[in-house]
Every structure is written in structure tokens, then in C-alpha cells.
């Protein structure tokens, strides 16, 4: 195994893995390191035993001195961890995603999935539904298309017209429009009510279930931009704008990117603690220093000209350099806390919609739509709890429960992933389990078949925790070195935590990082030809034109115009 690389990427999270794959494919030598024994970092998908271990390692942290600064950082990030029940048997049949994510059918993430070839490694399914919790045991469908609006029995005629007007506005070119002028930062839900005269019910549905906002204060322009994106994504593969990755979503996809990197020669090292990261003076003719990374159990350190690191590993960088520690600046990002719950179910969930009015049950004309939802359970869906809709829930922020069933290949029956952003800073750390219990109960109430004598079932395993999330900033300059003198060392910026946005956010961050790395390494690549590739005569420099190089595709012979 070589010991010198162009780039060492530390952490196998989603952003880091996409970046590593792109850099490998562009011809750079990449070593990819992670202290965990699984791929994915904070975006990993874990089976239940591994999830249990994950939780134990981070909650035991305060008891004894930690084996690594990385774990210390993780223990500060994930707090109030409590698991209920030990993992059920056949743990490997389950794949729990630490970052629940939806993949929009258009956008930077799916573009990268396809262009990198990673899409060929996995399977995907369309999200079936987004619904809003209405009251105990009932949910309301969220209309997101003209078809939904037409068929809806919950909306009056005037509400339908106004909702369509809004959807057309959002799907069109609203930048600079008179409706938007001056309202870009106003709360989105207020904008909907005043500018489009939408009722509270409809505005709530749009805000929390179409735009995936988390609070009533969320501003208009980002929410509108998201809706625009999702409206445009709908129809590419089916009725929903979103795909869900099989076998655990993001975590499974991460492995695809790591594989892509390995296929073209990238090296990946898991489960080794980092002992130190130091700088040594640049070799002759190079303006930049060499980084020296010592790993536990390795005789020789790894060296590189560039480091890309997940934030939880950056303490190594300030400790490991010979520079003054007082220069370490806090990351320029704001943060928030989010309560997360992982609930494993062994009875499927039903979405019983509000009973339709009598016209629908006319023997001749009646539509058959509503009764169907009363008997078939949902497989892959999102259940939204707007603020104040749940009596014991939050009155300021919305919770999103992401349900993945057997069809998503992540569980024999299903897993529910609940996220609830928390308001304000309390002095004492909040109790994740206590905060999320009302939501768990409301969700489990839906495991009872509607109008039947069934009893509500219990989860077979639950895990609660609070995650301190860094939030992305709006500035262009997100990718900054952690220390002023480390020009060739980058930390990955935070991903947007929103369920529908996180994947695209990671892809965009990865692309920015990729170009920064390319520019930093420019002119002196250690080019290792990929399989079958020839270096054209007279050219030993690689011109990188795009984020992903062209995929080898099978040229389709047009042939006869046969039927």
C-alpha cells in the first residue's frame, strides 16, 4: 500500500464520500479514513446491533476518558441518548438511517448519483405519500399536484382555486414577481395567508408538508424555492417528487460512493484511531506543506498534500499542528438542537383519511379512492405534525416522521424516524425520550387497522437522542480552512438538516469542496491512470472539465425500426 496520497479524506460521511469518489475518478490518489468500523459517519445506516453500539459508545462517553478526540466530539453532538429494549433478534434485517433523507427526482444529488455510476449499485422506490396528522387516529392527505387538488374532498371550491393559483405561482418564475417583493424574509406561513388568501389549514399543509419547514418563523424565499424544486421534480419517475433509497437510504448510498472511489484505486481505511496529524515542511518545488497522519497500528504514517476532514476530526488538526492552539476559531455556523427518535415496528401503519362526504359513496357515481386507504397500509411515507397539532407536542416547531417499510428493504415491517427541532436554549439538557413520547404514541396509534377491533401495538425497539446540528450558512464562502494557515486543509461544511434537502445539500457541498481541492492541487497531480485509460501522448497533466467524468455507457445500436 502506498503511503503518499494527493488527498486524505477523513470521515466517510455523505459529503466526504461524494468528494472522495469524485477526486478519485478525476485521477487523484485518495486515502479515505474513518475511525468507525462502518461507512457513513453521521449519515451511516446501521443494523440494530450496530446502532445499539453506536449509542453506547456515545453515551458512555462522560463516564471514562475517551479513547479519541473524535468520540469526544461525537459525545458532545449526540446527547440525552436512551434506548428502550435491547435490539430484537435478526438485527441484520434492519437498516436504520442516522440521517433520514428523501432524494428529489431532479437536483444535484440525483445528478451525482447518475453521473458517478452509484445509481447502478442500488434500488430506489417512490415515496408514496405525505400526510398531516389531524387528530387521534386520523390523518389528512396533502395535495401536491393538480390531480390531488381536484380529487380532494377536504377543500372547498374556493380553496381549490386559491391553492392552484399558489401552486402555479410556485412552479413558475417568481423571482422578482410583485407578489414576492418585500416578503422574501417574512414568515412563509404568513405570506401564504395574506398574499394568497389561503386558509390556515391549507397554509399549514403547504408550509410543513410541501415545503418541509420546521417552524412558523421559517422565511418565505427558501421555502418557495424548495416547493418550486419539488413541483418540478414531480412526474419524473411517478406521482411523487421524491425517491427513497433501498436498504437504508443515505447510508447505503455512501457505500456506493466509497465503492466507486475504491474501484478507481482509492484506498479506504476503517476502524483505526488517528494518533496525530502533523505538518512537515514542503518538499522541494512545492509551495504547500505535507500532512503526516499517524494511524494506530500502522508502522508508516500516511502523507498527503491536502486534507479534507469532517468537523468532528478537526480537533486533531489544531492539536496536531506545530502552530499555536489559540488560533483555533469556532466554526462560523449557527446550530440548533433536534430531538430524534428511531422506532422499530412489527405492525404496519395505516393512514386513515377523514371520512368522505356522502356523495362519494353514491352506488353509481361514487369514486372508489378513499376506501382503498382504509385497508392497505402505507409502506414509505412522511407523516407531518405541525406545531400545536399534537396536544402534548411542540407548539412552535413541526415534527416529521419518516416511515420506511418492507418495500424500502430497510426492515421486515418498518422503521419510523422522527425529527423534531427544539426551540431555544434551555439551561438543562432536554430529555429526548420525554419530548418525543407523544409523537411516538400518536404514530403507534396508526398501527391499528381503521374501523377494526385491533389493539394498538407497541414498538419492538426505540432509541432517542438529541443531536446538536450545525446549520449551513448562506454565504458563498462556506468551505474555509479551520485554521488560517492551513490553506490546503478543508473541513466539510454542514448539510441542511431538512429531510427533503439534506441529500442535495451534501452533493452541492461536495462539488464545492471538489473544485477547491482541484485548484489547490492544480498543476501537480500524481496521476494514476484509471483502468483502460491512456494518457495521450505529450500530455502528462490532467485537465479536469467536470465534477464527474463521462460514464462508460453501452452505445445503443439504433438498428431496424422494429416494433
Amino acid at each position, binding site marked *: 500500500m502506498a503511503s503518499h496520497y494527493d488527498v486524505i479524506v477523513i470521515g466517510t460521511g455523505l459529503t466526504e464520500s461524494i468528494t472522495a469518489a469524485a477526486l478519485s475518478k478525476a485521477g487523484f490518489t485518495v486515502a479515505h479514513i474513518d475511525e468507525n468500523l462502518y461507512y457513513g459517519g453521521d449519515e451511516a445506516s446501521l443494523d440494530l446491533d450496530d446502532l445499539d453500539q453506536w449509542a453506547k459508545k456515545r453515551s458512555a462517553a462522560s463516564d471514562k476518558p475517551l479513547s479519541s478526540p473524535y468520540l469526544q466530539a461525537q459525545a458532545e453532538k449526540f446527547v440525552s441518548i436512551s434506548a428502550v429494549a435491547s435490539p430484537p433478534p435478526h438485527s441484520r434485517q434492519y437498516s436504520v438511517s442516522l440521517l433520514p433523507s428523501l432524494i428529489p427526482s431532479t437536483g444535484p444529488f440525483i445528478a451525482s448519483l447518475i453521473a458517478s455510476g452509484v445509481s447502478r449499485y442500488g434500488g430506489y422506490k417512490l415515496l408514496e405519500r405525505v400526510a398531516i396528522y389531524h387528530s387521534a387516529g386520523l390523518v389528512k392527505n396533502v395535495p401536491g399536484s*393538480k*390531480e390531488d*387538488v*381536484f*380529487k380532494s374532498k377536504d377543500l372547498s*371550491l*374556493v380553496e*381549490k*382555486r*386559491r391553492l*392552484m*393559483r399558489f401552486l402555479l405561482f410556485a412552479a413558475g418564475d417568481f423571482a422578482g414577481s410583485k407578489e414576492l417583493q418585500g416578503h422574501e424574509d417574512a414568515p412563509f406561513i404568513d405570506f401564504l395567508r395574506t398574499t394568497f388568501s389561503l386558509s390556515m389549514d391549507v397554509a399549514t399543509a403547504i408550509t410543513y408538508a410541501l415545503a418541509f419547514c420546521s417552524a412558523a418563523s421559517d422565511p418565505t424565499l427558501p421555502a418557495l424555492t424548495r416547493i418550486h424544486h419539488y413541483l418540478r421534480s414531480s412526474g419524473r419517475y411517478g406521482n411523487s417528487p421524491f425517491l427513497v433509497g433501498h436498504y437504508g437510504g443515505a447510508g447505503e448510498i455512501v457505500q456506493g460512493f466509497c465503492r466507486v472511489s475504491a474501484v478507481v484505486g482509492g484506498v479506504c481505511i476503517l476502524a483505526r484511531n488517528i494518533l496525530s496529524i502533523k505538518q512537515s515542511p514542503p518538499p522541494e518545488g512545492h509551495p504547500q506543506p505535507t500532512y503526516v497522519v499517524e494511524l494506530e497500528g500502522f508502522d508508516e504514517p500516511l502523507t498527503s498534500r491536502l486534507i479534507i476532514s469532517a468537523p468532528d476530526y478537526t480537533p486533531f488538526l489544531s492539536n496536531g499542528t506545530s502552530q499555536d492552539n489559540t488560533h483555533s476559531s469556532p466554526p462560523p455556523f449557527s446550530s440548533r438542537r433536534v430531538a430524534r427518535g428511531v422506532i422499530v415496528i412489527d405492525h404496519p401503519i395505516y393512514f386513515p383519511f377523514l371520512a368522505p362526504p356522502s*356523495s362519494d359513496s*353514491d352506488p*353509481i*357515481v361514487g*369514486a*372508489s*379512492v378513499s376506501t382503498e386507504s382504509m385497508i392497505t397500509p402505507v409502506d414509505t411515507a412522511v407523516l407531518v405534525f405541525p406545531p400545536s397539532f399534537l396536544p402534548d407536542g411542540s407548539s412552535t416547531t413541526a415534527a416529521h416522521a419518516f416511515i420506511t417499510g418492507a418495500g424500502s428493504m430497510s426492515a421486515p415491517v418498518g422503521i419510523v424516524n422522527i425529527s423534531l427541532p427544539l426551540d431555544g436554549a434551555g439551561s438543562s439538557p432536554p430529555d429526548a425520550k420525554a419530548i418525543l413520547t407523544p409523537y411516538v404514541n400518536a404514530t403507534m396509534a396508526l398501527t391499528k387497522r381503521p374501523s377494526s377491533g385491533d389493539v394498538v401495538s407497541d414498538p419492538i425497539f426505540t432509541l432517542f437522542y438529541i443531536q446538536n446540528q450545525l446549520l449551513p450558512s448562506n454565504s458563498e464562502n462556506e468551505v474555509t480552512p479551520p485554521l488560517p494557515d492551513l490553506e490546503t486543509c478543508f473541513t466539510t461544511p454542514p448539510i441542511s438538516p431538512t429531510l427533503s434537502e439534506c441529500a442535495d445539500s451534501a452533493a452541492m457541498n461536495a462539488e464545492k469542496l471538489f473544485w477547491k481541492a482541484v485548484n489547490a492541487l492544480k498543476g501537480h497531480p500524481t496521476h494514476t491512470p484509471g483502468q483502460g485509460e491512456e494518457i*495521450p501522448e505529450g*500530455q502528462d497533466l*490532467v*485537465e*479536469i*472539465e467536470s465534477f464527474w*467524468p*463521462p460514464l462508460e455507457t453501452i*452505445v445503443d445500436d*439504433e438498428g*431496424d*425500426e*422494429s*416494433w
Partner: protein
Amino acid sequence: MHGVKRTRQSREAEEARKLKEQAKLKDYLLLTEDLLSRKKKKDWSKEAFDLATKLLHSNPEFYTIWNYRRNILINGIFPSSSVEEINSILSSDLSLTTSALKAHPKVYWIWNHRRWCLENVPPGPSSPTGEQTQGWRQKNWEREMYVVERMLDADARNFHAWNYRRYILSLFPTPPPPTQELKYTTHKIESNFSNFSAWHQRSKILPLIWEKEGKEREEEMRELEFDLVRNALYTDPNDQSAWLYHRWLIGPHPDPILLTREITSIQELLSEQPDSKWCMESLVHYTLLLISLTPETEREEMKSECRRLLAELAGVDPCRKNRYQEISERLGV
């Protein structure tokens, strides 16, 4: 460099493709010449039949060859075949044209050929007692319904498919009940109501049902139809198909109370969507209708409302300005 090799390759591929095309064109022209001369000579052989099939593969719109091919069947192949063989030939022709339809869903001659095949399926098979059953025909009709439904799933607005569907339904000796067909149109309208054919089909089926169900039930069902179409109008006032259906529902001799109610509903829609041309146009049409049902003395207010709408229409729809002006002038008389 990454990009270079591939363009060079595809330029070569382009040249190769062009050569292939030239070869294909040459073959096609030779085949056409051959077939047309055989047709002149009244060649009814199996060889000619197969050649015709081959030509139609590349050009299903060549109706002369379809005709020739059918003549081969009638004059050459059928006379020397048993009933079973005829049925089997027609069945395989139907399969052949199914694939053709997937690629060319709107070619008249393919639909035409299917009809011909259906009409020529012989009665059979014979039952044990020697009677002729409709077994083969029934089986083909059922398959045709399935094919037409797949076609309508792919393109719900393909009027060829809707016409063909009506044709098949008329063939069944025991046709499926109109209520089933109604449910089908409901299903199609719900998935996308911008579909003239689906609404049209509804307007053909409902009168059949109403005839059987009686006056009271008809009133009830009409109300449900108004409810359905009003939902479509409010969801998308720009969609003409819904307006046309509404006009059909109103009919030429509506009850004045019903008419007034619908006018009010459209006025509400117009206030929500002030630029809607169809709203204004329909209001004018219905108000004129109402005027004709109203005593002379109460007409003035409605007339001036019409004039106002027509003036606005002339602004919103300047291409038809003169038409609106003409209607307005006739009102004044």
C-alpha cells in the same frame, strides 16, 4: 484528456450510421417495387404475404400494402385453410399489430386492420354438440378491451383508442353495464381531467343510464355531475374540456333556477380569477340563455351585464374581438 476520445469515436459512428441508412433505404425501395409489381400480377402467395409484413414493419402507414395483404389473406390463404387456422392467423395478426400500436398509436390503418381482423374471426370453436359458439370472438374482444385500456393508460387523450373502445363495446352480445364504463371514465377524469374524450364518453353513457333509472335518479345524478365538473372548473378554469361538459349538462332547455345557480357559481369563480376568459364567455352564453327564458320586462339588467362582459372579453381575447362586438350589437336590438 477525458473528453477527446469520445467525440472522435462518435464521429466515426455517425458515418457508419449514415451508410447503414443508405443501405436500408435501398432495401426499402426494392421491396416496395417488388410488392407493387406482385400486386399488379395478383400474387396471392405466402411469400408475398411475408414480404408485405416485412414492409409494413418499417412503414405501417403504407395503406396500399395493408390492403394488398388483406387481399392475399382473402384470396390466397383463407380459402385453403381450416377455420382453426384462420382464427390462429388472425390472432397472430392482432398480436403483431399490438406491437405496432405501441410504436405508432395514432396510425388509422393499424386500428383499421384490427377491426378487420375482429370482423373476420369465424364463429367457433364448435361445442361438443356441434354448435358454433362465439368463443373465439369473445376471447378476442376481451383481449381488445385490455389492449385499449393499456393504450389509454399510456395516452388517455388518444381519440382513436376511445373510438375503438366504443366499437368493441358495441360488439359484445352481452355488453358490460354502462355503470362500469362510467366508473372507467371517472377513473380517467380523476387522474387528469384535461381530457375531452373522457368527458365525451361520459356524455354518451349517462343518458343510457338515466333512461333506465328514471327521472328522480336522473336529477340526483345530474347534481353529482355538476359537483364533479365544478371541481374541475375551480381547479383549472383554463381547461376547455370541463367547460364543454358543463355546457352539455346545462343543455338547450335548462331549468331557470338551475341556470341561475350555475351562473352565480361561475360569477364566484370569476371573482377569484378575474382574468378567466372561459368564465366570461360562459357567463355571456348562459346569461343569454337565461334572458330567453325570462319575461321581457326583467331582461335589462342581465343585458347590460352581458354587454359589460363582452367588452371585457374583447380586451382579454382580442383575436375574437369582432365576434364579441357582434353579439353585443345583437343584444341591443
